[in-house]
């Protein structure tokens, strides 16, 4: 018995180490002057899987192992099926419009997964933050459709702090992330107040404030270096202090792409933290209770207003981090027309992940791959990038339709149950 526990603990340690090392390597992978490096990290991750399964077998027996495998296949199966179907439909569209789907998709996946993998990863990081923001609001039954606005606030705050704080890197980066996040959270105080006091719908209020935030950014940029009359870069702020830059991958993986920064690692850590917050803490419990049945939650003494506040502020904080990530990691300055739509795309990845914080990591990567690969495809094969947007739309449709199937299935099951029981 004792021995079993020890082996299990060792296995868990190995899984964590292999998973972390493999993920970092894989995320830092790149193609440099024809030489690919670090892609083998994925095999390190794969190696961790049998070890984890062994641990489950050891601790819970073969029955549990089988059910775990079945559950995993089922939960991954539907999204994958949706993606495959969407790709096939996209291929048919290409055929109809006179493009070769094989070369086009070849380019898409080569671009997204190999050649421009670092761009996929760069795309994914802010999406994880905005996706988490929307997922947390979903848990409370709220739709934080204005994540785009909180993103701008986060970006502006990061640029402002980055231009003014000149402290040692470790301290200042933490400060930038926290303060900018808090300011972005504060941006959601008004929608939260309106929701609690008057019942004004957060879709309207956060959306309006998103536009407000977006049009605040030109003013901010003028104030911090952007000068249309003299500057060669009129629509951009000055560069922030280098101490406020997120470390790049090539500082510890010499062969990594020089633009690739560690924002993706921060994003993954935050996703795990959000998962913990939602499923393992009192706050998460109350948020979920209010989201699923606010009347019953209230009857058990859980305040609806307080949890609407919590959820919207946490959502604002997370969306703000997406902006911080872009400014401190990638651009090191604030551009006027970011036009990145990370806020809006966050809705897609959150929906695609079914509101699961961990799922958001993967759906964000998929979105990032499709975006990066799509650009590569249109550049090398002249296939219009729009096809990628269509494929994304179809994936989203099919996966959201999945929830319709699940919902319908539940409904039919319940009906049956009602008539049996």
């Amino acid at each position, binding site marked *: 018995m004792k021995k079993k526990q020890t082996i299990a603990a060792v296995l868990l340690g190995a899984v964590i180490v292999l998973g972390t090392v493999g993920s970092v390597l894989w995320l830092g992978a790149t193609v440099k002057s024809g030489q690919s490096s670090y892609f083998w990290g994925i095999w390190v991750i794969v190696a961790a899987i049998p070890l984890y399964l062994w641990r489950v077998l050891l601790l819970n027996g073969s029955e549990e192992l089988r059910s775990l495998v079945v559950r995993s296949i089922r939960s991954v199966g539907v999204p994958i099926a949706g993606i495959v179907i969407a790709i096939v439909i996209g291929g048919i569209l290409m055929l109809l419009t006179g493009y070769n789907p094989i070369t086009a998709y070849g380019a898409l996946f080569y671009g997204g997964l190999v050649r421009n993998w670092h761009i996929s990863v760069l795309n994914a990081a802010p999406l994880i933050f905005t996706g988490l923001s929307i997922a947390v609001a979903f848990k409370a039954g709220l739709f934080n459709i204005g994540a785009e606005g909180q993103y701008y606030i986060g970006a502006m705050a990061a640029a402002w702090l980055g231009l003014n704080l000149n402290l040692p890197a470790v301290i200042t980066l933490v400060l930038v992330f926290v303060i900018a996040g808090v300011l972005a959270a504060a941006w959601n105080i008004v929608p939260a107040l309106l929701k609690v006091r008057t019942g004004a719908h957060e879709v309207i209020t956060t959306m309006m404030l998103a536009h407000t935030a977006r049009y605040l950014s030109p003013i901010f940029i003028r104030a911090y270096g952007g000068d249309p009359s003299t500057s060669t870069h009129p629509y951009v702020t000055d560069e922030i202090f280098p101490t406020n830059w997120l470390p790049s991958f090539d500082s510890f993986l010499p062969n990594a792409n020089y633009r690739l920064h560690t924002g993706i690692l921060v994003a993954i850590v935050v996703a795990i933290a959000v998962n913990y917050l939602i499923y*393992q*803490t*009192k*706050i*998460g*419990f*109350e948020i*979920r*209770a209010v989201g*699923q*049945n606010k*009347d*019953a*939650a*209230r*009857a*058990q*003494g*859980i*305040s609806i207003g307080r949890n609407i506040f919590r959820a919207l502020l946490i959502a604002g904080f997370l969306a703000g981090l997406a902006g911080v990530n872009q400014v401190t990691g990638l651009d090191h300055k604030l551009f006027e027309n970011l036009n990145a739509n990370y806020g809006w795309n966050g809705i897609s990845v959150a929906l695609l992940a079914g509101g699961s914080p961990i799922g958001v990591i993967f759906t964000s990567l998929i979105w990032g791959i499709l975006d990066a690969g799509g650009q590569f495809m249109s550049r090398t094969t002249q296939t219009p990038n729009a096809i990628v947007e269509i494929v994304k739309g179809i994936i989203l449709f099919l996966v959201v339709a999945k929830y319709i199937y699940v919902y319908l299935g539940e409904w039919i099951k*319940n009906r*049956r*149950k*009602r*008539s*049996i*029981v």
Partner: protein
Amino acid sequence: MTDQTASMRKVILETRDIVKRFPKVLANENVNITLYEGEILSLLGENGAGKSTLMNVLYGLYKPTSGEIFLNGVPAIFSSPKEAIRMGLGMVHQHFMLVDTLTVTENIILGSEPGAGVQIDYKQARRQVKELSDRHGLKIDPDAKIENLSVGLQQRVEILKALYRKARILILDEPTAVLTPQEVEELFSVVRDLRKSGVSVIIITHKLEEVKAISDRVYILRRGRIEGERITAEVNKEELANLMVGRSVVLTVHREPHEAHPEPVFEVENLHVVDDRNIAVVKNLSLEVRPGEVVGIAGVDGNGQSELAEAIMGLRPASGGRMIHLGDDITNLRTKDRIARSIGYVPADRQRYGLILSMTIAENIAMGYHDRPPNSHGWQLDYTAMEEQADDLITQFDIRTPGALVPAGHLSGGNQQKVILAREFSRKPTFLLVSQPTRGLDVGAIEYIHSEILGMRRKDVGVLLISLELEEIFALADRILVLYEGAIVRELIPEKTNEREVGFFMTGGTEKAS
């Protein structure tokens, strides 16, 4: 009751050896029933006995695994309700299928609108509805919006909807579950009128009184099988109950004498409460509950019961008066603090206010006390402890579930209620507010819940019971407070009164009846 013998009358509907098998359950096993023209047939059984399954098979919602159905002697298995409707079957579900924002006429004609092409002939429709309602004595305003009608009238619209589609067989699924006593009487007279005009009616129910009051004949279902068939006039309630549950039940649990402590645990003084429209619905209400007694509030639904309950739990502000728990004024305390003060609450609408159906049993049991040990330490929840606690309570309260991690929504109504009781009763309450604890439950579950409530009384908990069922009040209460239009109009002792007298005061009677 007609004195024609059944065998002389025309068989309109017959099932032969209907079997309906679901993946894990045999819901109907060789069910044979016969329906005669112009009779009222009851289908009596506990929740889960297979009544609704059988009706859904008849109505074309389910395909039977095997067996035959004959309509007017012709084999007929419907593949959809649409087909069933065309062949003269009508069904009124427990939950009405009406569009709230449309008028009565529009709802009735919905799906089979008169008129040519895309045009709807509203004038003709209105006339037809009017004529139909006159003919069957179902008085209703054809132009009223559904949302403005009472539940009883909405049910009437459902019946008219079926009749408009020329139903000859009308299936009513638990028709009285949502009605007030007066509405039940009206429904019964409508059903009798329908019988006169040759419509056959099947009533699905688990209430013995209802079977006795309205039906000509009754089939008793238990565990998917027909347990017996009786002419209603020739059977008594005890026999029906025995057939239904398969064992002898005492319809009223035995309430042993128990001395209540003199010092009240909970008091309400001159309480005033307004409803959502700002109308006073609880007026100058005072009461006290002592440890070890059950105080029953009897009243017709809508006389301030729900607002009173919400005010006691702090879910609705009191516009005047005081509430005192163990000597402290709690009028302005939050719900959370009241729960922490060992006040327990079993709400009337268990699915809306009692449980979060998508959460697990363990989470539902922990809810409210999720912020303290053993359910959580610091900010972190302790799922292991929550599960252990739930497992204990599942055994203790005999909750039928595969485990503590099953969503509450997967349980039957009786087991859902047991989860709520387990949560509230296990927290060592000093005062319990119990509202409609057995609504919609079967005899076995009612008996269990009643005995649990009396168990709390034995442990010197003060219980305030709000119920619309007089039988329940008489079975449990040591004192009866009659609520009428938001005020306590009379206090009665169950041993010294009867249901007639309570009913008299409940409906606004002021002089002492007979």
